């Protein structure tokens, strides 16, 4: 039997960062609010209430579609997808069926540094459902509570073609898509909180065969890692079925994080018939060419191109460039630092290292960093020029970040500018040798490790402003080991 090959396609749902919900004036931001407080007759699905299309959501969807190279038909419409569930207050979801806002694009992504491309079937717009809170486990709970704060939040669905060929490709595709959405500013990319969700379709077929195998839909993966793990599990499970002579059943399975396995949820026979039909409460959407061109003109630089440009322009490392362009605000911060005169590689190191750690601890986005890019650039310049040591620089950054002060101001106020004046240094070096005669003797007789305490003594005597490199050089010279 020929080796089996996986065929994978992803369906990604992304909540749009609009101010209001998809069809009413309620806030699209719903987390942390008292249950059912962010609602109105329309998103509660009260009898008689009607939807009104959110123009911004349409624009964001078109913009995403354009970034993915999709075609934007002039005519589009909304449809009703009918099914019963307590989190769906109207008994139908307003979605798009046969005339979506966009069709036919592709997404570029990389796997192990190799460029790949995956077809995009369509990008369309729909509304999110509410959330259910079960009193215990779903199947045994005495009751469940419905919260409709999320109901009606704009949801963009990006349907990928089954162009992926291994579980390893899936998270890479999703990362690239997430990055694109972040750069477009249409989604916050938060998979844990569910503002970015991913379902996968996977089938196996003997390598070389054209026809697709039986497709299984896998749901409930809320991280890149669980996406890959779930698909790997499915490859193992389906391979075992096929290799033992059985047939894979078309069904929907859910990924269980606890069991690290997919579990059958619904067979093909139980599959819902959604009875789609055109939403009579909304007129068809006419998308003007002017709007499309205006949105196309406002597209940001594609993330992969931005990464390559910054890498080449500033001689960044591959990974550094990738990290610095993961989110648009990171790239903007970096470019602002470079513009303010910081040497690019050091700028990237400082931003990705100490600054990012501080932001993470403070749960602050880099764009709200109390130390703006220009200030950090000034600090980096001082370190590079040897005016302060790296250690002092990092300590000062921590304080400046906490106090919302300029690091350079703090250095000046505290007189922390490194002393590199040879005469002054000479005095501190002599003092250290007198103070630590044993270390001096050890070093003189070849014990390199004895230099550390001596440099420390110099720094201490100087109140921390002695340039440590200069101190070691002078100590070496004084103890007869210069030039080595």
């Amino acid at each position, binding site marked *: 039997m020929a080796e089996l090959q996986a065929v994978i396609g992803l369906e990604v749902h992304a909540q749009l960062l609009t101010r209001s919900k998809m069809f009413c004036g309620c806030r699209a931001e719903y987390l942390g609010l008292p249950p059912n407080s962010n609602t109105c*007759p329309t998103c*509660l*699905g*009260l*009898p*008689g*209430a*009607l*939807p*009104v*299309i959110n123009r911004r959501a349409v624009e964001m969807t078109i913009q995403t579609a354009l970034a993915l190279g999709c075609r934007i038909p002039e005519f589009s419409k909304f449809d*009703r997808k*009918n099914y*019963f569930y*307590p989190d769906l*207050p*109207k*008994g*139908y979801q307003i979605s798009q069926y046969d005339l979506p806002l966009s069709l036919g694009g592709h997404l570029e992504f990389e796997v192990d540094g190799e460029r790949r491309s995956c077809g995009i079937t369509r990008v369309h717009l729909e509304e999110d459902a509410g959330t259910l809170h079960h009193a215990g486990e779903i199947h045994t709970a005495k*009751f469940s509570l*419905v919260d409709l704060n999320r109901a009606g939040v704009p949801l963009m669905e990006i349907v990928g073609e089954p162009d992926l060929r291994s579980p390893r490709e899936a998270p890479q595709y999703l990362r690239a898509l997430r990055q694109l959405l972040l750069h477009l500013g249409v989604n916050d990319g938060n998979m844990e909180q569910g503002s970015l969700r991913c379902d996968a379709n996977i089938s196996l077929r003997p390598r070389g065969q054209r026809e697709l195998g039986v497709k299984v839909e896998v749901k409930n993966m809320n991280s890149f890692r669980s996406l890959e793990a779930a698909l790997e599990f499915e490859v193992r499970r389906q391979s075992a079925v096929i290799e033992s002579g059985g047939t894979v059943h078309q069904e929907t399975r859910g990924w269980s994080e606890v069991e690290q396995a997919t579990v059958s949820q619904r067979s093909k026979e139980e599959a819902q*018939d959604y*009875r*789609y*039909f055109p939403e*009579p*409460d*909304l*007129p068809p959407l006419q998308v003007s060419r002017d709007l499309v061109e205006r949105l196309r003109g406002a597209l940001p630089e594609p993330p992969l191109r931005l990464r390559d440009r910054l890498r080449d322009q500033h001689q960044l490392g591959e990974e550094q460039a990738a990290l610095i362009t993961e989110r648009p605000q990171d790239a903007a911060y970096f470019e602002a630092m470079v513009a303010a005169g910081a040497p690019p590689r050091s700028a990237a190191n400082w931003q990705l290292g100490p600054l990012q750690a501080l932001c993470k601890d403070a749960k602050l986005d880099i764009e709200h960093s109390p130390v703006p890019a220009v200030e950090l650039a000034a600090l980096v310049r001082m370190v590079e020029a040897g005016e302060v040591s790296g250690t002092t620089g990092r300590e000062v950054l921590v304080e400046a970040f906490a106090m919302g002060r300029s690091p350079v101001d703090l250095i000046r106020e505290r007189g922390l500018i490194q002393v590199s004046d040879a005469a002054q240094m000479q005095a501190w070096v002599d003092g250290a040798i007198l103070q630590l005669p044993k270390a001096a003797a050890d070093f003189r007789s070849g014990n390199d490790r004895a230099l550390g305490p001596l440099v420390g003594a110099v720094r201490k005597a100087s109140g921390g402003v002695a340039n440590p490199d200069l101190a070691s050089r002078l100590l070496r010279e004084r103890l007869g080991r210069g030039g080595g």
Partner: protein
Amino acid sequence: MSLLDLSISELGRGLRAREFSSVELAGEALGRAESLDGRLGSFLRTTPELALEQARAADRRLADEADPPALCGIPIGHKDVLCTRGVETTAGSRILEGFRPPYDATVVARLARDGAVVVGKMNCDEFAMGSSNENSGFQPTVNPWDEERVPGGSSGGSAAAVAARLTVAALGTDTGGSVRLPASFCGVVGVKPSYGRVSRYGVIAFASSLDQVGPLAKTVEDAQLVLSCIAGPDRRDSTTSPAPVSDLAGALREGVRGLRLGIPREYVEAGLEDGIKAVFESACRWLEAEGAELVEVSLPSTEYALAAYYVIAPAEVSSNLARMDGIRFGPGEPQAPSLLEAYELARNRGFGPEVRRRVALGTFVLSSGYYDAYYLRAQKVRTLVAQDFSRVFERVDALISPTAPTPAFRLGERTHDPLAMYATDALTLPANLAGISGLSVPAGFTAGLPVGVQVLGPYLGEAMCLRVGAAVERAADVWRRVPAGFDG
């Protein structure tokens, strides 16, 4: 003689001249409802507190404002499919018992803004599905002209209450004839505006692509005054037309001289009762005498309209009514062993047989494998029906026909034959499929029962309908007749 016998403009003069107050007028309406509606069953509930509050406010406006709106202080009833803030709204269904909407329908708000006084919520067929008012989940309404007969549906409560002078005017909804048919059966005027002329926001949906709110009133002018108040674009309903509302009041005075009126052959050639034919023919003679030219026209797709309607409307019903799942509305079934069974129990108990029939029908025609054969095909027929109308409106200014092939029928006569019941709307529902304007105006009687003439106008041709309707009304001169037992 009751104040409720007067037209809105007559009442307006009396209110402005302080011959009576709005509080007195509302009191008389509510008093009549209290003493007479036991026989009719036209109200699901009266709203005395709201009426008193609104009437007091109206009296202040009548005293303070130089030119208060025409409807200021006028009692009005709302079909129970219209959401009224804080006032129970059931759409005639048990499943919505206890539902107090937290908001007003746009039409309700617009009437309130003009100072109209809400006296109550009018009975109707459950979710407006029916032609006789016998499908109300609470009580049937009877016809004030013959209490053994139906008032027509689904806005039967609205029509009966206006005819019996329990309210001055009322709002109904017309999805396939639900305003025009009861207007014809009860001897009042009923207008079905063009689709999109009146906001549907806050109207509990029957079939969203067909529903329109329209007034029921004693005279064409009364109907026009209410229509002028509620018509026009609404940003909460994306299907409303952005076109401004034309001069509807002016149309009433224009007469029909020089108009060319079409009589659709398919509407008159078969199935009309003799008494209906006789009244319609005299109406035709009056219009000719007034200077209109009458021509026969053809609407060849008419024979398929009923079938298309009974695919499209139930399809939308099956989706629109999905929210009535027993979880958010209705008593609920917390003891049900599973979610599916909870839905089934709640909907079987909460919905009446006609609603269940249409939900089942609609679910079927939308199902995969049947969609193309039924729903898609019905939509094509709908396009043909609309094209028929556009074609004839190139040649004629309006169409006239009887509103229904028969006068009001007996209670129970058609309840066991859904197809016979559906055929009641054969002459009215094509206008809904096409989205055009129409009305029914009383033109006479047969065997003591009122007979209406239907006037159909083009899309947004409400002014033309009112113009022709007013001419029929002048010639017929029947609007001051009050059903026996309700006069005094």
